[in-house]
């Protein structure tokens, strides 16, 4: 078999889009359940780092796409999602299903609802991304090991350059969070980044665009 060595990519390749995945409910208080060890401790601290990144993206005219997981109150659309560790979640008539106000979703932003884990599964996200001519997807939100990981895998299979902002994602447990970050790094070797480096790269991109 012919092997091709991975080419190091810059943090942002082509046009970026920021994917804010399932930042829903309430991030003002801890919802870590010690008995279930779910979700990971300090989950909200990771989510609270997201708004500053969104503000930077907005200032640089980077499209922001908010993903929202929803399920019909009749629970008809859960598929197999309740066969495992997860309980009933994201019912459309629950106030906890709303995208959190801290992430400042505006009418001019993009908003895609989904009924499965992956942002791509039976949604119009790919149509939107093609329209935006996005090449690099910057991913934040939760859970690292479920909706973020599987959005990443699907984006990877659709040939997007994927970046996961590891201090702006949190998992169903800390070990699952770490394992998912490692799995994403396996798919794209330079995919893990930290928020402040990304903010710097976005600012540099804006500055270059302004002077160019």
């Amino acid at each position, binding site marked *: *078999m012919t092997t091709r060595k991975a080419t190091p990519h810059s943090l942002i390749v082509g046009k970026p889009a920021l994917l804010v995945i399932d930042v829903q409910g309430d991030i003002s208080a801890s919802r870590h359940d010690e008995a279930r060890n779910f979700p990971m401790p300090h989950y909200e601290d990771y989510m609270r780092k997201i708004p500053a990144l969104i503000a930077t993206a907005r200032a640089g005219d980077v499209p922001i796409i908010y993903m929202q997981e929803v399920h019909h109150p009749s629970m008809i659309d859960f*598929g*197999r999602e309740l066969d*495992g*560790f997860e309980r009933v979640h994201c019912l459309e008539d629950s106030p906890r299903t709303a995208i959190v106000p801290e992430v400042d979703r505006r009418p001019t932003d993009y908003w895609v609802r989904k009924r*499965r884990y992956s942002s791509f599964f039976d949604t119009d996200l790919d149509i939107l991304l093609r329209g935006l001519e996005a090449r690099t997807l910057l991913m934040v939100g939760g859970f690292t090991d479920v909706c973020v990981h*599987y959005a990443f*895998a699907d984006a990877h299979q659709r040939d997007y350059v994927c970046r996961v902002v590891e201090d702006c994602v949190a998992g169903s447990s800390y070990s699952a969070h770490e394992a998912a970050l490692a799995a994403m790094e396996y798919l794209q070797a330079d995919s893990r980044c930290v928020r402040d480096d990304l903010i710097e790269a976005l600012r540099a991109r804006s500055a270059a665009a302004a002077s160019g």
Partner: protein
Amino acid sequence: MLVVINTHHASFARLPSLIAAARQRDIPVVFANGSATETAIPDGLRKNEYLIRQRRHSVFYGTELPILLREFGASTVILAGGETSVGVHYSFVDAHQYDYFCRVVEDCMAGTSPLAHEAALRAMEYMQTGARRKSDEVIATFGNAPASLAATGDNL
């Protein structure tokens, strides 16, 4: 339906028995691979069996697997092969999102590393409790399957 992904690892000693047990009960088997040399199909393809070419990690992505599953009326997808943490894991996710009952035969697969193998098995068990199975149990269940259920393999 039994889906066998990339069987080029020498470590899957139990895989031939698993495939033989499925064949004995007419449970459809689909082999998926990256290249022809990577798939070991004992005695070649039989009726009810397909070889599909996979160009992405998930065996669902850009392949005829969704059609085959519908045509056979399968409700349970049983995954074996490799790697646990890539082809198997992402195929499981798609099968799960398509509402299939998903089972992985954990002694018939290997990960890109032991750590990645175990993490992927945990992630799959997170999605569906009871997803992780051993080959002895699956083979025994195949053997006990009533003929009417054998075609769908939905009694695990």
